[in-house]
């Protein structure tokens, strides 16, 4: 079933703190000249229908919560594309007092598209790479490609542990909404 994901990746676009340059470029990709729809890409505007979250702009204290919320509302499997310099590192706004930096601080990123703003060709390439990453994911292939991956909406019940018990050394988990064995960086 999910084998078709590279044939119909639907995107939702969230503008974090962007100057709008990247947003205009993204929308330009949907116009007749570049026509992303010929790859089945639709701009759905609704996180619950989307497969790819495209984020432009850097994260600040106000929108980190919103970005996380949009990401959590997407049903898995989902990919995140950080578009432009700001969403990668904070870009030109990195030194602002309120800016946290790239969106990686809030959600796990699969593909970074460099540029300020990126070229439309680079954007198309990024979308193709995002679905490619999902298709080549070992966890995905191990499940035969038809696994129904489940996201927990509520936090998992924490076992009550005796205070004195030594905590096992834990890897820092990626964000709660990455059930697909995504490589956390």
């Amino acid at each position, binding site marked *: *079933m999910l084998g078709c994901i590279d044939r119909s990746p639907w995107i939702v676009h969230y503008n974090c703190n962007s100057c709008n340059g990247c947003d205009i470029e993204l929308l330009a990709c949907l116009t007749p000249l570049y026509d992303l729809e010929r790859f089945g890409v639709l701009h759905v505007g609704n996180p619950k229908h989307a497969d790819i979250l495209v984020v432009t702009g850097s994260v600040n204290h106000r929108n980190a919560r919103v970005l996380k919320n949009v990401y959590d509302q997407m*049903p898995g499997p989902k990919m995140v594309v950080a578009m432009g310099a700001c969403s990668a590192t904070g870009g030109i706004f990195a030194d602002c007092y309120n800016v946290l930096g790239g969106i990686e601080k809030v959600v796990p990123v699969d593909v970074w598209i460099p540029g300020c703003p990126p070229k439309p060709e680079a954007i198309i390439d990024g979308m193709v790479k995002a679905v490619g990453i999902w298709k080549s994911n070992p966890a995905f292939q191990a499940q035969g490609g*038809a696994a129904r991956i489940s996201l927990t909406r509520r936090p998992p019940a924490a076992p009550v542990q005796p205070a004195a018990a030594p905590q096992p050394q834990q890897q820092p988990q990626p964000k709660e909404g990455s059930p697909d064995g995504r490589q956390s960086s």
Partner: protein
Amino acid sequence: MSTMNQLLIALFAVVLAPAVGALLQGIDRRINARMQSRVGPPLLQPVYDVLKLLGKEGVILNRTQVLYAWIHLAFLMLATVLLVLGQDMIMALLVVAVSTIALILGGMCVRSPYSRIGSSREIMQMLSYEPILVLLVIGIFMTNGSFMARDITLAGKPLLLTLPLIFLAFLLVTAIKLKKSPFDLATSHHGHQEIVKGITIEYAGPYLAILEVAHWYETALVFLVLAAFWATNWVVGIALAIIAFVIEILFDNLCARLTYQWMLVHMWTVGLGLSVTNLIWLYWK
């Protein structure tokens, strides 16, 4: 017709209708793209979309929502079977109405403003086109003297010649049913994002796929009714339906979306006016 035969025909219709609907939607998106001088998605794009949705994680807000989606699909299937088996058209009309009501209730049973706006607009759409559909069935009755779909060729001449104005009114209904501009109100289906997918906003993954498949059935049903306007010769009928489809797509590209007040007023004046005029003409002929 034996019962076995009827069962086979019903099964055939249930399998064939979504295939036809999916293909029609693929062609629709293709023609749309060409009208905007784009290449457009592959012909089987609706199928790819649904297959992908079936594999995705399902997110819902409550169980009732899913039940309503299934009712929506099941009743559309039932309406298809009723029409293909030549049953009562009033019954088929009411079955389609129940399926639409299930969709509305599915949108209303969640606490999501966009979903509720979409649902209330869907109610307005129903209010706009249901009277025209009833008048269409009455017009068919006045031509053939029978409400049964199997008697559609009883008068010996195509319905289009006796119901030309009702056909025009039905084109307006088709635009609503196929979610085309200027009547694309309840779902903001084709690329518009005014109410971010409206009535379907809270369905995700496989549950959205149910609604998409239901829309295939809906498309096939509309196509069938359009073709039935020339039921004496189905080749001409299908050609007629294809022409009507292209007209719908053309108007989809020409028009911006309008408000539901505009839709209601014009469907009740222009649409109903055309239908009633046609009926009066039939009565006095």
